[in-house]
């Protein structure tokens, strides 16, 4: 879905390169989680990965982040010829905030881990952007679940990496907070290449430019569904609901769903 109108609140440095994953394979204990898996992530696109629990969604995400150890192979190429390593930011289901650091210190974690001087102004700006200005001095134990995930989002944005990998970042939140955070993420990450793992078809359709289903063992990637319009989309829209039904069919145990062409791209 290419749109010519420029959406408001784009990320400051839009991503300029495509990512092409070829023949990815990960095996644990001699069993292939997936093999011959191909996935393309166009520059600045928001891709969602749906699938049943344990199918290997997180593993695929972690594979891209170079976090899987052991029996792993595959090629990741970027269209600008620079390796992907070191150009990703990672956001997990748990907030992963360090309990001994304040919100602000957590947002600035990346710089201190690299031995750099943190950009306090930028951190404050991003903390304000996720609505935590009044909580910047608090430790995670003093925050609600939604506030923690906001802080984690600010920490992800602080890294300002061209590629953002998100592993069910909103799944532990209550519905209202989840919708708010989805909206916020859609706004602040616009222009970045994002891969989001989720088990919620509506979340995927709300946020994704491309929605893939991963299923089977070894897992295979189904053809992408491309919801119309800009994210965050209206989930009461008839087209979205129709596509949700289609995704649920693909996700379901109903084997006829396998008739959908397999192994996209």
């Amino acid at each position, binding site marked *: 879905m290419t749109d010519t109108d420029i959406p408001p609140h784009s990320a400051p440095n839009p991503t300029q390169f495509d990512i092409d994953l070829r023949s990815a394979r990960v095996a644990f204990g001699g069993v292939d989680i997936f093999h011959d898996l191909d996935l393309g992530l166009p520059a600045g696109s928001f891709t969602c990965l749906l699938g049943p629990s344990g199918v290997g969604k997180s593993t695929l995400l*972690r594979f891209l*982040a*170079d*976090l899987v150890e052991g029996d792993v192979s595959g090629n990741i190429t970027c269209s600008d010829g620079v390796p992907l390593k*070191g150009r*990703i*930011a*990672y956001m*997990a289901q*748990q907030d*992963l905030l*360090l*309990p*001994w650091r304040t919100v602000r210190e957590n947002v600035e*974690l*990346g710089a*201190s*881990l*690299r*031995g750099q001087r943190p950009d306090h102004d930028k951190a404050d700006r991003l903390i304000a952007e996720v609505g935590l200005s009044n909580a910047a001095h608090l*430790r*995670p*134990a*003093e925050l*609600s679940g939604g506030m923690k995930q906001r802080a984690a989002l600010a920490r992800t944005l602080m*890294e300002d990496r061209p590629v953002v990998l998100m592993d069910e970042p909103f799944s532990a939140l209550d519905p209202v907070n989840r919708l708010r955070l989805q909206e916020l993420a859609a706004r602040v990450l616009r222009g970045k290449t994002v891969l989001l793992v989720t088990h919620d078809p509506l979340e995927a359709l709300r946020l994704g430019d491309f929605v893939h289903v991963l299923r089977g063992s070894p897992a295979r990637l189904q053809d992408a569904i491309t919801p119309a319009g800009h994210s965050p989309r209206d989930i009461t829209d008839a087209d979205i609901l129709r596509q949700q039904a289609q995704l649920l069919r693909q996700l379901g145990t109903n084997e006829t769903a396998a008739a959908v062409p397999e192994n996209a791209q």
Partner: protein
Amino acid sequence: MSTPVKRTPLSERRLLKIARPIIIIVALIATWQLTVTLTGAPKYMLPTPVDVWHTLITRYAVLFDHARYTIAETVIGLFAGATLGALAAIPMALFTPVRFWLMPILLVSQAIPFFALAPLLVLWLGFGLASKIAMAALIIFFPVTVAFFDGLARTEPGWLDLARTMGASRWRLLTHIRLPAALPAFASGFRVATAVAPIGAVIGEWVGSSHGLGYLMLHANARVQIDMVFACLLILCAFSITQYFIVDRVLRAALPWQPDSLTPVR
């Protein structure tokens, strides 16, 4: 706003908090006095609380002089043992081969009864402070090492993943994530150490020494000055409790994010 649940008012709870140890101490002393009265035990078997109090006051100078040694041995032993424990735990957590070589040695060291080691330490290190410090340090080395190693080995894997994507070096991973994350575990090991360190010092003094409360107890016991033995025990107890209390307070203040030191929020 009235709630049907009855709650003790804050001031009353605070009062109880102060009064509780006093009540416990008074009850213990009363039980002690009652035991002496009921059994009619002679003074050289079980002195009364008043006898012991009298000894505490009249022999204050001697008791204080010897207590200084025991306290010094305990405190120095505590810090020496904790430092060694921390220094052993870090390489064990960082380098797998070190863990494989050091763990069996640690376990074997725990199989040796420390009472049996005390005469050797006195033989090697002499009658002075060094052998008692070594004894106290040895006795606390294991709990500190194991607790800290456990803490270092159990770093939340998600934090490590996050740090790797952020480009952290192995060193900064240690100093910024693994060490602070393991501090609460180290603190619980250190608390245990605080409680057992005086035991090490006193054992050392029993075996060979001319100073310290352990020496004084043995000396008085041989002369059937049981009131003196009790006075030494009371001082040891008071010191151990005070030391534990101080260490606990300092650790809580130093690690305010620890779950047990947080005030409940919301």
